[in-house]
């Protein structure tokens, strides 16, 4: 589908998509390692690259109601996690604009 524009991340430690090995997120953008996603443990990350977002959905997660967008690797379309669009609980507001990256779907390099 056209020439995909793939961003590359500098820095020694990056996360790459497990399927197609394009860069997904830098290691130093991790906010928390104690999250759990749909498939097991996950990270909360500030910044991801080379993703496409799905539509907005309201979901009831362990910590309450949130509006989230699923994120997919732009190269192989694998589901990598989601992005917090809006949190309805004040204690969860810090998550807004950040991403959850499933550990099972990425691999750590470096």
């Amino acid at each position, binding site marked *: *589908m*056209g*020439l*995909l*524009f793939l*961003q*590359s991340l*500098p820095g020694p430690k990056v996360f790459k998509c497990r399927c197609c090995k394009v860069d997904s997120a830098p290691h130093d953008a991790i906010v928390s390692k104690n999250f759990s996603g749909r498939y097991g443990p996950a990270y909360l990350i500030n910044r991801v690259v080379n993703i*496409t977002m799905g539509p907005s959905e309201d979901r009831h997660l362990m910590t309450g109601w949130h509006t989230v967008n699923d994120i997919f690797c*732009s190269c192989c379309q694998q589901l990598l996690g989601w992005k917090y669009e809006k949190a309805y609980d004040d204690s969860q507001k810090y998550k807004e604009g950040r991403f959850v990256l499933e550990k099972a779907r990425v691999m750590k390099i470096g």
Partner: protein
Amino acid sequence: MEPSDDIESRLSRLGSRGLIDTTQFVRIIIQSLYSLGFNRTASSLESESGVRLDSAEHDRLLFDVMSGQWESCVSTINSIPGIDTSSLINASYLIWREHFFELIGSGCFLPAIEVLWKQISPLGVDSCRVHRLAQYLVCCEAMGQTGSVGSTVQRRISLFLDLVEVLPPYIRVPSGRLEKLVETAVLKQISSCQYHNLPKDITLFEDHKCWPEQIPSTCCQVLLEHKNEVWFVQFSHNGRYLASSSSDCTAIIWTVEDDDMVVYKHCLMGHEKPISFLSWSPDDTMLITCGNGETSKLWDAETSTLLATFSDPKRRIISSCAWFPSSNKVLCASSEPDNRIFACDLAGNVLDAWEGERIPKISDLAISPDGRLVIGICSEKTIWLCEFPQGKEKVIREERSITSLSLSRDGQFFIVNLNSEEIHLRKLDVDIGDGVDAVFKGHRQGKYVIRSCFGGSGCSFVASGSEDSKIYIWRRKCKSPIKVLMGHSMIVNSVTWNPARPHMLASASDDHTVRIWMAGATLQPSKKLGENLIS
């Protein structure tokens, strides 16, 4: 209006807003008649309208200068109403200086000194000039020279011409004034003309305005030869060939015939990966193709033979390359495992290489047509300008990621496509500021590399592909598109505007086709039918 009416009974102001003074208008007309050679008409217009071309002060001054009556020159100048002090001083200086030279020329040194003391110094002009005159006096006296410096009449004529430059313009109408005014109006119309593309004679009888038919807007040909997505198209510099590259790992060269039909020439096969980038040599004899994550190959454009392969022992990926104007050296940017920029000759021998920790990953590279500036897109968000080979550098940071780069044909400007669906235009200069010269919006871009180009006569238009399968054309001064071309069914990856034929545009799309668009104004009626399939 009866022709024998005097000027006072006519309107004293012309034009719908009353801005134009009739007397001045008539004087300008008389001046242009004289300059065209219609002396009789001009003088009869002078007598009929009662308006003289030259003002009274002009005639008095001319008489005084030519007869050498310097005091009355100065008093004439002083009597000019509305003259400002600095012009007065300059004019007086010129007159007295001429008097000074003539006195020296005829050997009267003592009167010359008097003139210098009494007339020139009190004027308050730049003291260096006064000192130089004094030096000249001493030299002449010492050498006993008295000879004239050129004929007196000629000197006085040139003095008069210098004087009218310094004095207010109404003394004498500047030459070519009417032509200059008309030209200004025409240029203004051209610059505000939105679709001005094809060269057309300017007529004075009506305001110049171009219609959308000047811009390529009708799809005349659909080229189906590629078997997979077409990622890149580019016309050659002379506009006679078109090269397209595709994810079916081939590149095709097409010929643009004299009747503007595009005909298949031959196919360049040999890559094993999709070809993401190609570049014509400045003399249009050779083509470089870069595979996506593979090496680059150099081809002869005429015969389609493979001349060289730029690979290197470390099997680096070459992301982009650019030609030097001499057509025998190429600059390549490669990455993985380490970033490297290298210049090599046509056989693939590396001449110069920049590598190391500090070299960033360059995704797009270009060289200005005169070979002085190198531009690279580093780490997706930075534009790097560098004078080649050694020289000043300039780094500009963009907010969002840059996907592609394109230079204008004259090497003055460049455009970058950003991820945020904007195209930024900047001046190609190491000394520019960080501000953007123009921003174009309206197209869609998000995931893919979309390329844009300059085009049209004088590179006054910008065209870009888009992810919504349309082609957008902007005028350089305007943020919104002036034309949107529809026809492709999938995203348009790249567009290119024919440099030699400003009415022709080509576009490459994921729907496996290359489309040729032409301006309605140049088409014969028979060609406006839908698609011509090339077998």
